[in-house]
């Protein structure tokens, strides 16, 4: 059976897997972004607080994804929960680090001006500091998303959703007629999804980064 025949025959299954993978990555990125920015906002002003946040989130990355998911299964069971938890934890680091670096990189004289003309602390954050730190934060989100795309495939090991199922099924039946086709379909699907996400981020950047600070 050729690769194309395989694709045609399993179209429905592949599209469902791809959609589930995209949806899982997207939702986990939303959580990681909100959580990551919140952590950054709470810690960026203190030298050790910020460094602690970056170190802690970086630690998650050193744990192999398969091991982390394996460790989560006894705690939260199979399926969606270990996938969401693992993806969110892995997604945190780039967001937290870029948000802290971005917020710390805002010109202090601008924060001084914001305070000096009578902005409240909340207004300073949301009208001046976050908008100016947004480009690096968006870059962090973009990097995290690329990473999660690959990691999400591993989640199939814990019966999670996504194109990983395709890959695992292929690996499990190596030697059979469709094994290579399955692995290939899963992998190419993930690459295509990653490219689509990236294009979406470029568009998002165009829409959300103010013209005055776009380069």
């Amino acid at each position: 059976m050729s690769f194309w025949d395989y694709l045609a025959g399993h179209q429905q299954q592949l599209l469902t897997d791809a959609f589930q993978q995209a949806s899982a990555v997207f939702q986990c990125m939303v959580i990681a972004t909100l959580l990551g920015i919140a952590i950054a906002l709470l810690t960026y002003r203190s030298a050790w607080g910020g460094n602690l946040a970056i170190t802690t989130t970086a630690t998650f990355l050193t744990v192999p994804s398969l091991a982390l998911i394996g460790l989560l299964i006894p705690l939260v069971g199979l399926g969606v929960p270990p996938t969401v938890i693992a993806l969110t934890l892995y997604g945190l680091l780039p967001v937290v680090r870029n948000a802290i670096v971005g917020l710390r990189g805002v010109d202090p004289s601008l924060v001084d001006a914001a305070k000096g003309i009578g902005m409240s602390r909340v207004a300073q954050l949301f009208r001046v500091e976050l908008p100016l730190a947004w480009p690096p934060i968006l870059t962090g989100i973009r990097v995290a998303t690329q990473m999660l795309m690959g990691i999400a495939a591993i989640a199939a090991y814990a019966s999670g959703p996504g194109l990983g199922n395709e890959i695992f099924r292929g690996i499990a039946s190596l030697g059979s007629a469709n094994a290579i086709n399955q692995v290939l379909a899963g992998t190419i699907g993930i690459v295509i999804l990653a490219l689509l996400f990236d294009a979406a981020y470029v568009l998002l950047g165009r829409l959300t980064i103010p013209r005055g600070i776009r380069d």
Partner: protein
Amino acid sequence: MTETATGTAAASAASGARIQLENLTKRYPGSPSPAVDDVSLEIKPGETVILVGPSGCGKSTTLRMINRLIEPTSGRIRIDEEDVTDIDPVGLRRKIGYAIQASGLFPHMTVAENIALVPKMVGWSKSRVKDRVEEMLDLVGLDPREFHGRYPRQLSGGQQQRVGVARALAADPPVLLMDEPFGAVDPITRDHLQDELIRLQRELHKTIVFVTHDFDEAIKLGDRIAVLRERSHIAQFDTPEAILTNPADDFVSGFVGAGAALKRLNLTRVRDVGIADFPTVSVDDPIESIFNKLREGPYNELLMLDRRNRPYKWLRRGDLMRAKGSPARAGQLVHDTVTRDATLHDALEAVLIDSSGRVAVTGRRGEFIGVVDMETLMNSVQEMLQADRLAAMEHEHDLEELRHHRTETELEGGADG
């Protein structure tokens, strides 16, 4: 009549408020000696006061305590008799304009959005804010249609600084704090911005507290100057004239620097000294009439004007002969002219550079008005310095004389025309 009008000073479209600093002290954590030590200063409504002193002497700290960007360790701040030391700082800052070096404009907002910030925060209606933005741009000399939608990075340094001032003044605060606002622009632009500020203040009468380390800037802008030494101790607080002619101590004279008399030239404008007439001819005049004028008049020199009445060439008696009667080749081109608003400093510079020993004074469109020569300048400087010295001496005896006078009139029963 002496009842204090508290709180609402900013409610009516406002000229300046009185600022009183009482025994202000700021001790930064971890620093053994205070950055500002027991400073008391009273600034009158509508006055421009310059805090000037060497770098690190505590100027910015002092200024930033007025809008509580820095909380004083002890002491009180009063604005129009209202004690603002403990009120909500955010509300306070909205009633105090704040302009800093490098403009502090938010790069992600347009010029209009930057200017609109404070009026919006204090709750002005949309249409009022919109009108105000145009008005402010106009006020600082930027065409609203052109600059409204630009981003700060699309402006020159001087333009950014203008927008910074416009933003600071947008909600019509009675008080304006400026921390080295012109410190980062080139000298020529700085000169223009200073002139603009003088013009603005003539219209607005805000109370301005202006920080600089440049004494010449202080002289040019200040109604009064507080010369600060380390820890913001006030070495002298007086008018520019008094500080130049009567520095309180060695520190102040050191800071005033050499050439106090020369700096004094920055305080007087060409319009204040005698602008003399000068015989002129036009480039279109027939050659004989030019000859005649040179021969008849008491001057052996003429000023030739171009077709739009602007100074063009100095013509001396021998020049025409040497140029074989062709006015086109004769004479010296006029290098530099001054307006009536130029300082005597500028005028003197022009006179020194121009070979004729005088400078032509021109009007708004460059048309010839008259001349100022070396002798006039010397005389007025001398008169000025003399008057300063007298004023300083009088000042010392002022109180005593006043008391004397009062008792006398009381004895005479106050009979006075």
